[in-house]
């Protein structure tokens, strides 16, 4: 009996710790007052509506969307063949390559951002958008390789040999037999990459330039000037968006099988 109450208490605390801040943000955004406070002063939807009227939010949301979608697609275009090569062919240093590819997950974003800025973007004079695109692609690549590798390892390679003996080329076997059977993993990698890219702060912080900011960076700088509840409202909206994406993915894909 005592054990039961202890475990309930721990679960309760864990959930409070995880969901509490989210609830505070949602409520803070509902405030009728002029400043971000908790508990909110009155209830109003005006800050949630104001979010959609701020020009810089609109522009930075578009940029973040662009980076998340196309950065992830680029990462998959590189990552799927890489994962395939590592899992199917006896590539020299295959495991080492896998570890190196995973580096952006392990190395702190601040360092990645600074390194990219100092040694790539500045010397080669990249535009801000191109720099951000390349950085986001690199950041998502490890997820693409890992998740797709996992589904490839579950797929027996004799299936491809069977396809070849029925007349396929190796490439044909990949597109006709391998891809259809790993599409769940590829989609899971896409969602994971999308969310990772969209929420990315430290690297984008270094690479963002005048007038070109991702949404999280734009929110940071907005808060430096104005401390109204619209940032809380926007945060809540983004959190809902992430939850919906993951929920839909879990429902239709069994997302948690892949990550």
């Amino acid at each position: 009996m005592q054990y039961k109450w202890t475990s309930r208490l721990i679960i309760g605390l864990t959930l409070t710790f995880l969901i509490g801040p989210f609830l505070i943000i949602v409520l803070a955004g509902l405030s009728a007052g002029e400043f971000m406070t908790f508990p909110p002063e009155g209830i109003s939807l005006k800050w949630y509506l104001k979010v959609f009227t701020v020009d810089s939010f609109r522009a930075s949301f578009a940029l973040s969307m662009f980076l998340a979608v196309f950065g992830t697609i680029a990462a998959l275009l590189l990552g799927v063949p890489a994962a395939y090569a590592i899992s199917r062919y006896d590539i020299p240093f295959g495991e080492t390559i896998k570890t190196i590819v995973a580096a952006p997950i392990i190395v702190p974003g601040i360092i990645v951002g600074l390194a990219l800025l100092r040694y790539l973007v500045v010397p080669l004079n990249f535009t801000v958008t191109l720099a951000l695109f390349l950085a986001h692609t690199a950041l998502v690549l490890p997820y693409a390789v890992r998740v797709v590798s996992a589904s490839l390892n579950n797929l027996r390679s004799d299936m491809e040999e069977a396809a070849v003996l029925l007349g396929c080329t190796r490439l044909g076997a990949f597109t006709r037999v391998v891809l259809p059977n790993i599409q769940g993993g590829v989609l899971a990698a896409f969602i994971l990459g999308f969310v990772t890219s969209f929420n990315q702060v430290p690297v984008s912080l270094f690479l963002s330039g005048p007038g070109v900011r991702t949404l999280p960076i734009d929110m940071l700088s907005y808060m430096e000037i104005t401390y109204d509840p619209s940032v809380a409202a926007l945060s809540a909206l983004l959190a809902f968006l992430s939850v919906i994406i993951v929920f839909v993915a879990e429902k239709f894909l069994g997302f948690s099988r892949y990550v």
Partner: protein
Amino acid sequence: MSDAYVSLQNLSLAYGSSIVVPELNIDIRKGELIALLGPSGCGKTTTMRAIAGLMTPHSGKITIDGVDVTRMPANKRGIGLVFQSYALFPHLTAFENAAFGLRLQKRPAAEIEERVTHWLATVDLAHLADRKPAEMSGGQQQRLSLARSLVMEPKVLLLDEPLSNLDARLRLEMRTELQRVQRDTGITMVFVTHDQAEALALADRIVLMKDGVIEQLGTPDELYNAPRTVFGADFFGFENIFEVAGRDLIGAKGKMPVAFGATARHMAWRPGAVSVGSGPWEGVVTGVAFAGEKREYVLDTDLGQIKAATDASEPAYQIGDVVPFGLPEATGFPISG
């Protein structure tokens, strides 16, 4: 040999620097059902993969119907392979699995429909055409894998351990199925197996392999009744094999004098050929197993362990009994190799 349809000439196969098959020569006749038999690691699967084109020979030549295919890519050879794991495409229905090759060839829809339907019916799967492989039993998946290859009317059909994943009843069913298909189509078949009973039951000829070398090539009758090597004899159920030195038999534990003068290097007896209950020597029963028609004994003797079997109707012995036994010259088989 002029009637060779598939011919392996001085074939050498290697993975990197490790040679699996040093030099192989096999001629397979058209319409023949041939078994590559041997324990795991004997090179039988590697040989099959080389015929299919899934691995490139180190040296030597493979010809099919007079055409040198040694360097021909696997997808141009027109060879079918039924994988041990079936290797069906999980995302496609049974019908689409079987139609896969024909769709690649861009055959007219009517022809695809007709050929696929025909072969699915032949392997008794017509009613499951819309099922995915995951919704089919092991036996059904196997037959689908067979149909998928046969739809292509291959010059040669290779089968990798075709019966090993099936239970006893399905095994008999599949065996009958394979023989029927072979009879009806006259297709040349090569199957790989480690199971001597399977090879004996199915094959026209058996290639017994060990360490990449052919131990013996012949009809099931020849391999079963007249093994040429100790390995072959052991593989086909001669469980008591002893070296012959002058008038002595040499076993693992010691030697015993025999009354006959054997000239072969080895003498071999099947369990049933050992006389139990009479004979010049004695052994202690250390194991008994009742196997229906037979009673199987393990005897501890001065030669070492001897495996014997008597008709179940004969008197039974218990563990610990001291039993007279003999290794008669008449029931023994001399092995020269």
